[in-house]
């Protein structure tokens, strides 16, 4: 389309965008994209958008979302993107394509001959379409950033290593164990085994929603690594359904000790370090 848009059309468009600036900005400010803004802000953003569009039309880069004209209006686009991300989804979401209709109407009123009008309309549509792509790109990258930071928070939150007794650690695993969270949990546990000189570590999977072969393999690897360091791993909190799933999947935890509940695992761990809990003599219930 760049090839089809000759210099005459380009000059005409640039001239039009300059002369009818006020009309275009007023028309744009009335569209749903800007009505939620304060009038002063809307006018300012419209002006910035328009000068960006004029720049890409002048330079013939209306097909390139990373063109200078579009990057000059990044901040405006960013505010459009964040507004549409926070707003209702689907057809109600503010969409920059509504800017196209008033622009084309005003361009039609210019009274150029038919060829120039059509070629100009095509270039203007392309520019608005590319603008929309730029908004989407910003939206997507903002979404990806949010997901990344939330994943990091989740990884940090989900791996507390708890000291139950001198030499006994527990790590309650919660939710879905993907490879990055599993690895973080393993590393935290092994570090704490060294730091606290723990002889027994309990991996509690009560809060794990599903155990597949990958998760099982991960638990097994953690247990093996702990054994190499001289500590024993106990896996606790295997719910009946999960036990059945594991059997059906053919998962064999080998020599790793398993217990139904954290309490059972704890008493097993106490025995391992030569401790026992007994009822005290002055306990009233005795």
């Amino acid at each position: 389309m760049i090839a089809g848009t000759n210099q005459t059309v380009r000059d005409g468009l640039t001239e039009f965008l300059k002369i009818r600036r006020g009309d275009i900005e007023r028309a744009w400010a009335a569209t749903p994209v800007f009505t939620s803004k304060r009038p002063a802000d809307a006018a300012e953003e419209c002006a910035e958008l328009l000068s960006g569009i004029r720049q890409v039309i002048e330079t013939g880069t209306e097909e390139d979302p990373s063109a200078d004209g579009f990057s000059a209006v990044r901040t405006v686009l960013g505010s459009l993107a964040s507004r549409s991300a926070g707003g209702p989804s689907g057809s109600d979401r503010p969409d920059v394509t509504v800017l196209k209709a008033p622009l084309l109407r005003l361009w039609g009123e210019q009274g150029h001959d038919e060829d120039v009008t059509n070629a100009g309309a095509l270039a203007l549509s392309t520019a608005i379409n590319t603008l929309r792509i730029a908004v989407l790109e910003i939206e997507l990258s903002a979404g990806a950033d949010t997901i990344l930071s939330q994943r990091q928070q989740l990884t940090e939150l989900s791996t507390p290593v708890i000291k139950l007794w001198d030499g006994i650690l527990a790590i309650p695993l919660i939710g879905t164990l993907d490879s990055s969270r599993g690895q973080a949990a393993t590393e935290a546990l092994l570090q704490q085994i060294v730091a606290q000189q723990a002889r027994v570590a309990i991996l509690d999977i009560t809060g794990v929603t599903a155990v597949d072969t990958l998760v099982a393999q991960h638990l097994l690897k953690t247990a093996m690594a702990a054994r190499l360091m001289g500590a024993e791993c106990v896996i606790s909190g295997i719910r009946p359904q999960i036990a059945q799933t594991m059997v059906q999947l053919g998962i064999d935890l080998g020599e790793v000790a398993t217990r139904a509940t954290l309490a059972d695992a704890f008493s097993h761990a106490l025995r391992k370090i030569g401790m026992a809990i007994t009822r005290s003599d002055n306990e009233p219930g005795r």
Partner: protein
Amino acid sequence: MSATSVIEMGDVLLVTVQGELTDHDAVALQQDLAANVAERSSRGVLIDVSGMEIVDSFLARTLHDIAAATELLAAKTVIVGMRPEVAITLVELGLTLPGLATALTVADGLAEFGDGVRPL
């Protein structure tokens, strides 16, 4: 460079590995230990690997071989103080060293031999 030292503690040999152990060093250690155990009729060998940061499959096999050889000479081998990253690496390599006794600290390792270890 690595430095391995062998200290006799009663009837237990304490081997300390410092730094990177080359293949050559590992083989030398293996032969050295077998000779030492046979000569002194030691009851056990404690290998302290807490100073070891890098491990490969050859080293893992050598540790396994040392344990097997000392076993034949009626001595038990215990690996002591393996670092978390070394343990993870070994597991990821699929080298879980089954049958090899491990302990967290030298004191825990000595306890593996039970009573009869003479104090220094």
